[in-house]
């Protein structure tokens, strides 16, 4: 009975890592497509998005099965409940990456890479997602904490980017549609960063038992 429980727990862990890796790769793919103005790459990335949704349901089923059939306590319960929370964040990351991919064809070959803050946001967000998944894989609390620090970089860059775009629109230098598209993408990146922080916080919770938000 116990060994079966352990088996299911390790399966959960495996699926979580796989789902995390999928997210990580999707956002990296989208960021690359965005900065290279690669419409074809964006289309491919968008096709990959549904895999994450599918994996979310899979992990969810495993979690609920574990909760119902094994009635775990203490750390096991923490790990499973944290997993349930994390997959929601991962799924949101996937969705928002897809949303960015959807905008890319409308940029007409422009990439936004001319704005250093925009590039910084894309790169930092990708790193944050990777780090939060890494923190989960290695169960490393320090790494999880570092993710939250990176979020400040993204937030600051977002504010600067927003001000810059406002200025550009008011000076009528850039056409409005392009500026709004960039702003939306920037916002998505900012949100993805927040989700990465959430994942990191749940990693911390599952390891030490205290949630930062509490």
């Amino acid at each position, binding site marked *: 009975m116990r060994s079966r429980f352990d088996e299911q727990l*390790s399966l959960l862990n495996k699926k979580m890592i796989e789902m995390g*890796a999928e997210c990580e790769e999707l956002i990296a793919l989208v960021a690359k497509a965005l900065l290279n103005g690669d419409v074809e790459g964006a289309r491919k990335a968008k096709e990959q998005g549904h895999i994450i949704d599918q994996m979310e349901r899979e992990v969810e089923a495993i979690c609920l099965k574990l909760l119902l059939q094994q009635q775990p306590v203490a750390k096991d319960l923490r790990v499973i409940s944290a997993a349930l929370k994390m997959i929601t964040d991962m799924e949101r990351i996937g969705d928002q990456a897809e949303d960015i991919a959807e905008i890319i064809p409308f940029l007409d070959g422009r990439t936004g890479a001319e704005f250093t803050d925009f590039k910084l946001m894309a790169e930092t967000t990708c790193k944050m997602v990777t780090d939060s*998944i890494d923190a989960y894989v290695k169960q490393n609390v320090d790494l999880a904490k570092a993710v939250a620090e990176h979020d400040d970089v993204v937030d600051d860059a977002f504010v600067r980017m927003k001000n810059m775009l406002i200025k550009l629109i008011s000076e009528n230098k850039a056409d409005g549609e392009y500026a709004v598209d960039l702003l939306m993408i920037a916002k998505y990146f900012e949100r993805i960063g927040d989700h990465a922080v959430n994942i990191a916080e749940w990693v911390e919770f599952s390891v030490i038992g205290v949630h930062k938000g509490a």
Partner: protein
Amino acid sequence: MTKKIFHSIFIVALVILLASIGIATSFLYEYYNDSQQKQLKAELSLVADTVNKVGIEYFENFDSTVFRFTVVYTDGTVLYDTQANASEMENHADREEIVEAFQNGTGSSARNSSTFSKKTFYEAVRLENGDVLRISISQLTIGALILGMLPAICAIILISAVVAIVLSHAMAKKVTEPLMQLDLENPSENSTYEELTPILTKVHKQHKEIKSQMETLRRKSDEFEQIVSSMNEGLVLIDEHGMVLSMNTAAKNIFAVKNDVKGSDFLLVDRTVKMSKAIWNALDGNHSEYIEERSGSEYQFTINPIESDGKVLGVVILVFDISDRAFAERNRQEFTANVTHELKTPLQSIIGSAELLENGLVKPEDTSRFVSNIRKEATRLVSLINDIIRLSQLDDNNEPATETVELTEVAKEVIEVLTISAAKRNVTLSLEGEPQTIFGVRRYIYEIIYNLCDNAIRYNVDGGTVTIVIGKENSRVIVSVKDTGIGIAPEHQSRIFERFYRVDKSHSKETGGTGLGLSIVKHAVQYHGGKLVLDSEVGKGTTVKIVF
């Protein structure tokens, strides 16, 4: 074992004890009954004799508490009884012993009393007057006797049980003690029970076998470990559950793993979707292969299932560093593209000029300019093709004739050939050092010095100098070509020996040359086993030194 021995001893002791008590009791009881009967008979005959002589009055003063006497008249009525009133007693004619006595003269019987706790023995004899005299005694039955002895028996059993427990425990321990102290590490050195010798010998033999097998196994795994760890290719073995079985040093470097990951999930090492898919694929028995860039190098990942009897036992991942191969591949592609481009440009120019001439679009006074243009481009094409031929000769590595070559002689020859072009650019050519001889291919050495000097002149400044120095350094022959030219920036220095590489791509036409010169130099130096040392600074000049 101690327990079993203890139990057996204890049970045997108890059974023997109970059996001996039972046998002794019944034997004693029999004996006691027998002697009682004899005593009864003796007493009866004694009393009967007296009664015969004295008559029934004998009992008047008779006092007996042990025995009971009864005198019965021939019709069965009781005449006298020592313990009860005779008149109140019932007729005794049907009593067994009385009947026997009337018939045979004597009779005896034994009857249990109504409570069964007592047994009464009767002996009867016919008196001379025809009456019957009976003697009787009551005693406990065997059941009652045992019942009466029960506390004593219990006490005996209890005490003997305790003694048996203690003794059998000690004995059991004593029997098993040598077994407990068997030294199984050295089975042949034990001297306990003879009966164990075959087992111990067998154990000893198996010990030796296991040891040698372990040794072989260890050696084999050591060998494997040694071979695998010195491999340049990354090798990872994974079991059917995705756990890492083995990972060599190269693989650890490639996957950036610091600690030992043996026994942990491979997902912890690498979680890329491509890899996961490839592993799943391999677990289904399929081969997969892909190329991916990691930390600046290009790797080829080959993932194969490990199969035995059609069952997948695990997965083997092989990682090759193909950076060099990929680089060479890119170089080759670049070279092909360059060659076609370089060959096409002069041809286009020739075709263009020829077409203009053909259609009569050129003014007569310009004709000579166009014709000389065609000639120049054609010459360029020929020299380009010559260079490519020379390069491919060097590539082929076919063995040309080697001889003793005197370097200053070759250098002088080069200077002679290049004087005109040097003069055109106002560059002074000079030779320093004393004659040195090396063993090599004269034509190749000529190519080396010629191309180096040609470049030194071509990329020189007005009024600059080119110096060829031939000498010895650390007992090795060196040739160096020093110029005061424009120099080469550090970022180009590693690439100038590539075919068709140009520092300044846009001005290659002006300076001339094919872009193959230094490539030829490199190959020729390599052919002679020499070393090229480049020392250059932008604006100051370049020194190329060849150490043979």
